[in-house]
């Protein structure tokens, strides 16, 4: 009887110890669970922040590469963290083992748990129970695992904060882009683009189709050659370049989606192509009769330009007040720059000299500029890029998507140097405003090329 009572007391004591091991196990598992959750959250949030930030900061290919690396690293990291958490989750045996090590119990708990599981009772069992119970204070759960919250919580919070900052930045950037979407076309900058340096590649599906390009014959010739070359490459198949182009397109689309259509760094701008030859100075445009004649003839072939009617309506969308811009023939080079610089109305309105009658419309508020300054790339900042109600001399306004970010697969190193800073100075008494000149007609041989460019 007494022996049985003593045995029951011994079992109660053993139960106390095993319950304490149970508490240790629960705490260890809670920490492991937190580690898995917070660790995974940390990695995922960090990856999202990195991808969003890179969408704003990097070019398409760099974004794609970084995105892939980040996604793979995140996946691997999450798997590792979850596996780590799983590995640290504890059974009773493992909890006892950990408690033994941390409390320097020299295997007492492990032995007790093992013996209790096996149901074997050694002659020294009661001694072991008493011996372990005497050390009970050493292995309370709070001593074995003092933390209730995993350290990963702090990393998760830090990751949350960083992600919040990045997403806020992204939200603001997108909002700004949406708000300033119409003004992108009117963004300040020199609307001079060397088409010869442009890289021709398959159109981005997100781009609007039917872009028009007006340029001088030489530039268009270069464009046509590039187009032919691009088509040849497309047919003969440089698979790596096609893959690169595809990857680039995918990355661009993804980037656009993240950045709200068009990222700030890669805004599509409406620009006007000007003749590089005219850079010598608009004032001396008259000294180049051949070029001027070409321009006039180009301007006169309005009927030949496809989608001309579409483009005529396009500039109105970018003019909030709907003010009509005097249609002017194209200016080139310095002439256009000079025209930009002269905001003051010139005494003699030379519109009528070179502009067809149906294009001579003066806005209600009076002429916005005189002579060259009233041209599509004239002095009115609203119409710097050729927005005019009626395209002068037909379709000499155009829009072309240009990636403003440095391209990582650019083909030319001789891009035109940035134009000099504009200085607005009034004309002196001996100076005369620029005289617009008519554009030359487009040679018949170029029309097919232009049409193909438009179709792209």
């Amino acid at each position: 009887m007494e022996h049985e009572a003593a045995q029951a007391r011994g079992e109660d004591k053993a139960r106390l110890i095993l319950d304490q091991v149970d508490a240790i196990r629960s705490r260890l598992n809670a920490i492991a669970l937190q580690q898995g959750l917070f660790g995974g959250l940390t990695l995922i949030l960090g990856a999202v922040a990195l991808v969003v930030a890179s969408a704003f900061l990097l070019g398409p290919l760099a974004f794609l590469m970084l995105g892939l690396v980040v996604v793979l690293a995140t996946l691997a990291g999450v798997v590792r963290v979850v596996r780590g958490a799983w590995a640290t989750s504890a059974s009773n045996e493992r909890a006892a083992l950990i408690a033994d090590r941390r409390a320097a119990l020299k295997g007492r708990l492990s032995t007790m748990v093992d013996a209790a599981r096996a149901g074997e009772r050694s002659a020294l069992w009661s001694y072991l129970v008493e011996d372990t119970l005497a050390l009970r204070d050493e292995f309370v759960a709070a001593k074995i695992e003092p933390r209730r919250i995993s350290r990963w919580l702090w990393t998760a919070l830090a990751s949350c904060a960083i992600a919040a900052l990045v997403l806020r930045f992204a939200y603001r950037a997108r909002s700004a882009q949406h708000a300033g979407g119409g003004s992108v076309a009117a963004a300040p900058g020199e609307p001079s683009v060397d088409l010869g340096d442009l890289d021709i590649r398959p159109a981005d599906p997100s781009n609007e189709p039917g872009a028009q390009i007006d340029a001088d014959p030489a530039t268009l010739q270069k464009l046509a050659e590039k187009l032919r070359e691009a088509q040849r490459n497309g047919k003969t198949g440089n698979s790596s370049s096609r893959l690169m182009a595809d990857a680039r397109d995918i990355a661009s689309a993804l980037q656009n989606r993240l950045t709200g259509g068009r990222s700030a760094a890669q805004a599509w701008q409406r620009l006007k192509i000007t003749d590089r030859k005219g850079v010598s100075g608009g004032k001396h445009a008259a000294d180049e009769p051949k070029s001027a004649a070409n321009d006039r003839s180009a301007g006169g072939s309005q009927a030949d330009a496809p989608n001309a009617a579409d483009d005529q309506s396009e500039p109105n969308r970018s003019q909030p007040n709907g003010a009509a811009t005097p249609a002017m023939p194209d200016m080139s080079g310095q002439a256009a720059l000079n025209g930009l610089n002269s905001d003051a109305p010139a005494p003699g309105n030379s519109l009528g000299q070179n502009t067809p009658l149906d294009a001579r419309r003066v806005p209600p508020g009076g002429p916005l500029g005189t002579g060259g300054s009233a041209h599509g790339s004239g002095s009115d900042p609203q119409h710097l890029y050729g927005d005019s109600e009626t395209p002068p001399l037909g379709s000499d306004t155009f829009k072309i998507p240009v990636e403003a970010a440095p391209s990582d697969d650019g083909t030319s190193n001789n891009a035109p140097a940035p134009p000099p800073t504009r200085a607005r100075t009034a004309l002196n008494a001996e100076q005369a405003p620029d005289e617009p000149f008519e554009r030359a007609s487009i040679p018949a041989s170029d029309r097919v090329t232009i049409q193909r460019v438009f179709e792209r």
Partner: protein
Amino acid sequence: MNAAARSEVPTVADFARTFRHVQAEIHKVIVGHQQAVEELLCALFAGGHVLIEGVPGTGKTTLVKTLGLALNLSFNRIQFTVDLMPADITGTRVILSGEDGRREFSFQPGPVFCHILLGDEINRATPKTQSALLECMAELQVTVSGITHPLKPPYFVMATLNPIEMEGTYPLPEAQLDRFLFKVRLEYPDEAQMVRIVTSTTGPEDAGVEPVFSVAEAAERIEALKHLVREVMVAQPIEHYAARMVRATQPSTSRYIGPQSSGTRVEAVDRYVSFGASPRGAQALIMGAKVRALLDGRANVAYEDIEQVAPAALQHRVMLNYAAHSDGIDAAHIVERVVQAVRPSRG
């Protein structure tokens, strides 16, 4: 076991007390060699036998004699020589005349019939004679002329080896080495110990060793303590640890064992070991660790106990190759590497 002895079931405290008492008695005579004495007693209470290695004059024979005196057990000594025959140690049948004048064969027990046997310089005997000890050590019995004669427990064999003067010796075969639970090294004494040895052995009186047990109860008490050792509990992870340690002494390319895909691979073992420890090595680890646990006042084995007995339990079981000899690597070094490799992380 008589009634009085049965009523006196030793406790963990009894064990530690008795152990320390015997140890103290031995150290009345033996100067230094604390670890060797402790390992010797561990092997005794674990029920194993010991191989003692030391240069001449380090007290090998004295140690064993002192142990016999302290335990108050019967003690025999055999000086192994090259012409020693198996019958010289196991005993033989001789013709004896009876009172009635009849002559008959009678078994005359050899020196192995005792509780503590000292085999001095065992490597000087031929393998035939060495192997005569195998049956005694492993099965506590001697078979002569087809008749098996049991040995009385406790039976404890201590064999000494002289690491120098290898000429004319017969190295113990692996099978016989494996039957020794521990191999104990007696290190060369330092200056202070040497002075104490000289002082205590050249004076007019020898240090007297008090027996810990009476002659009548010595064997039973020791057997009871040995039984208590076997009651010490070992958790499964610790058994796995011992098994892992023993397996790690085997080179991964060994053709004698199966694939060690889950085992711990130790570079030094692969390079220097031709064959590692047998399962007897794991038994030796656990039994030695149990004694250590009792000495520490525990009824369970800890990882530390295994690590403490690993050098004594494993180093004579590790067969080194020529590369080890040429590089000056000994078995102790290999065992140390193995222990480091399989040591569980402290977390």
